[in-house]
């Protein structure tokens, strides 16, 4: 893909960066369509698609009937016919009705047909908590998709990367589940909007020597904040691409630091951190001073708004995890 630079002197929000990415993709490629529930006239419940329908017309940016399997299923058919649909699931839990279409078709069509059918569909999913949403509006559902071979799963942590990664997702010949950290929609940055970072690479957001702290999506900002407060020198990696995982970038860091922490909002039990911990341990076992620490949501359904703070990882919990990484190398074995 070509690198596009959109000048952005004044700070813009992640929502606007995503909007800009779709606008630029729609302008650059006639095959790109944007559709879903309320994404047309209304511009999306988070206004992420604001203005696109009026600028590009109702044939390319439109509201569908209210049915998520329908949205993904018809997107697949359109992709079979040469278009590049970018569809929205209004909230995380409302992608579940499309689970069969995503898992049995979207993920597998290329493989089933030995590459004859490509389905370059992007599914945008606002995900995660921290916005005081009522039940079913705050799930971190990445585990369900990450385990499915054939899907790419990516999520940006900053406004500039929201632009970069969404352009890459739309240009990608593979289907991409694009998780948008909804609590960061209004985060601002003046970093210029530039496309070009490979879709499958993690990025070191803050170099450090003592410990590797990995985060993605909504937790990138939290991880950076924790790194700033820590007593030790923390390297922060924004994973960006959850599937595939960038072993190279991460293992190079962990082999250097010898200690690692991974953070996410989703429940810990078979949350994404399990794979991160398992593969790092496989690849860096003899470099590790302590087990890879996971700082995650609790193993519970997402809590009601007034209790969500207890569920979500925060700076304190990250700092605690870092402190528990056996810095003195005096190991006390627990009882068997």
């Amino acid at each position, binding site marked *: 893909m070509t690198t596009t630079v959109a000048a952005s002197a004044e700070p813009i929000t992640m929502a606007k960066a995503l909007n800009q990415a779709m606008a630029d993709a729609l302008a650059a490629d006639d095959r790109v369509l944007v559709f879903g529930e309320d994404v047309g006239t209304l511009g999306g419940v988070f206004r992420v698609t604001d203005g696109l329908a009026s600028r590009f017309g109702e044939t390319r940016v439109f509201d569908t009937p209210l*049915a998520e399997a329908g949205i993904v299923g018809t997107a697949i058919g359109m992709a079979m016919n040469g278009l590049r649909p970018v569809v929205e699931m209004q909230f995380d839990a409302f992608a579940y009705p499309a689970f069969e279409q995503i898992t049995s078709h979207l993920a597998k069509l290329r493989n089933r047909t030995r590459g004859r059918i490509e389905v370059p569909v992007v599914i945008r999913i606002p995900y995660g908590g921290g916005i005081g949403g009522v039940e079913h509006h705050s799930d971190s559902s990445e585990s369900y998709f990450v385990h499915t071979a054939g899907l790419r799963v990516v999520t940006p942590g900053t406004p500039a990367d929201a632009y970069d990664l969404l352009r890459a997702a739309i240009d990608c010949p593979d289907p991409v589940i694009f998780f948008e950290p909804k609590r960061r929609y209004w985060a601002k940055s003046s970093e210029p909007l530039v496309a070009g970072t490979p879709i499958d690479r993690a990025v070191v957001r803050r170099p450090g020597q003592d410990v590797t702290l990995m985060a993605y999506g909504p937790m990138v900002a939290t991880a950076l904040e924790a790194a700033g407060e820590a007593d030790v020198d923390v390297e922060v990696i924004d994973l960006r691409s959850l599937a595939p995982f960038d072993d190279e970038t991460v293992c190079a860091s962990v082999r250097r630091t010898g200690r690692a922490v991974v953070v996410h909002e989703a429940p810990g039990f078979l949350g994404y951190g399990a794979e991160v911990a398992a593969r790092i341990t496989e690849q860096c076992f003899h470099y590790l001073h302590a087990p890879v620490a996971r700082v995650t949501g609790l193993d519970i359904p997402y809590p009601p708004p007034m209790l969500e703070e207890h569920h979500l990882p925060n700076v304190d919990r990250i700092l605690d995890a870092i402190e528990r990484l056996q810095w003195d190398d005096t190991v006390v074995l627990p009882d068997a």
Partner: protein
Amino acid sequence: MSTVATPRPNLTRDLLPGDEPLQLLAPSGETAPGAVLPADDALLDLYRRMVLGRRFDAQATALTKQGRLAVYPSSHGQEACEVGAVVALGEQDWLFPTYRDCMALIARGVDPVETLSLLRGDWHLGYDPYEHRVAPQCTPLATNTLHAVGLARAAAIKGEDTVALVFLGDGGTSEGDAHEALNFAGVWKAPVVFLVQNNGYAISVPMSKQNAAPSLAHKGIGYGVASMLIDGNDPAMVYAAVQSAVAAARAGEGPTLIEARTYRIEAHTNADDATRYRSQDEVLAWLARDPIDRLDRYLTARGLLDAGGRDQAAAEAEAFASSLRDRMNLDPELDPAALFEHVYAEPTPALQRQAARLAAELDFAPLEHAGEAAQRAAAGQSGDAGR
């Protein structure tokens, strides 16, 4: 609009709805010729509950502005459905409401503060579903239609004469689950009534982008489900239609699909901006078809309602709202331990460890990192940490 004496379609002859919504009361409050109306006292009761419902709704909206509710989806304008359908139920029946239907819960007798737990955010559900036979308000669209069918079928299996009434929106009818529910209901002849409140919009999406059928009630015939199209702003019609559908279900005649044409006067929720997708003229036209005014006119014309009665209903509603406001101004009791208690019948060992860790965290929070060692100890952690 056409009018009817008996709104119940003849199941053996005709599964299709009429071309025009059935009506018992015109917007003017005049009765359709030949229309047989529900009993006076039932309509008077309906009137009072609608006045109360609307006042509750306004209070809830006000609470969002005061930050006492996180969000509120108003049913202003939909009172005929919200209340009329519910009062047609018996005590043994079940109601399956959506997020939109707080007013229906109030009409069913659920405590208003318990009703608002979900939207206040202290817990996902504030009331005991078995107390009033009201299922949790459902957010994932149309999914509860299947629960209603299952519950109704179970009642039939157990020989109970329970009927389940499930609410859904025009948008919700597009979800696969709505179709599967109608189909299971048709095959099982389950005692269930589907009430589609077609309020014109699914958030911003109008009917023209949602469905191309002559009416949403036309879906019924594809499942062998008797269907009716009614004026959803006619309280007498909604009440009569649901009552007849419930009676038919109870008599073993199977399910009914009712589409009630109504209108959402407010935005989708307080967080929505409806001016982005609809005109003020459209709203004004529907305000002129107000369901409470319609019943008011009818009752007044029949001499059943006068200024005194009107004031009394308003006063009752006001008292209800003011008590609600007072109670909602108290901060709810929050118990973080509840996060772990009901994930399973018994908390798993891992959940017990997580609960202990949270308890330690909360105890020691003031100490911040200084308390870390103590927390670790409290959570039973050492060199190798359990989750």
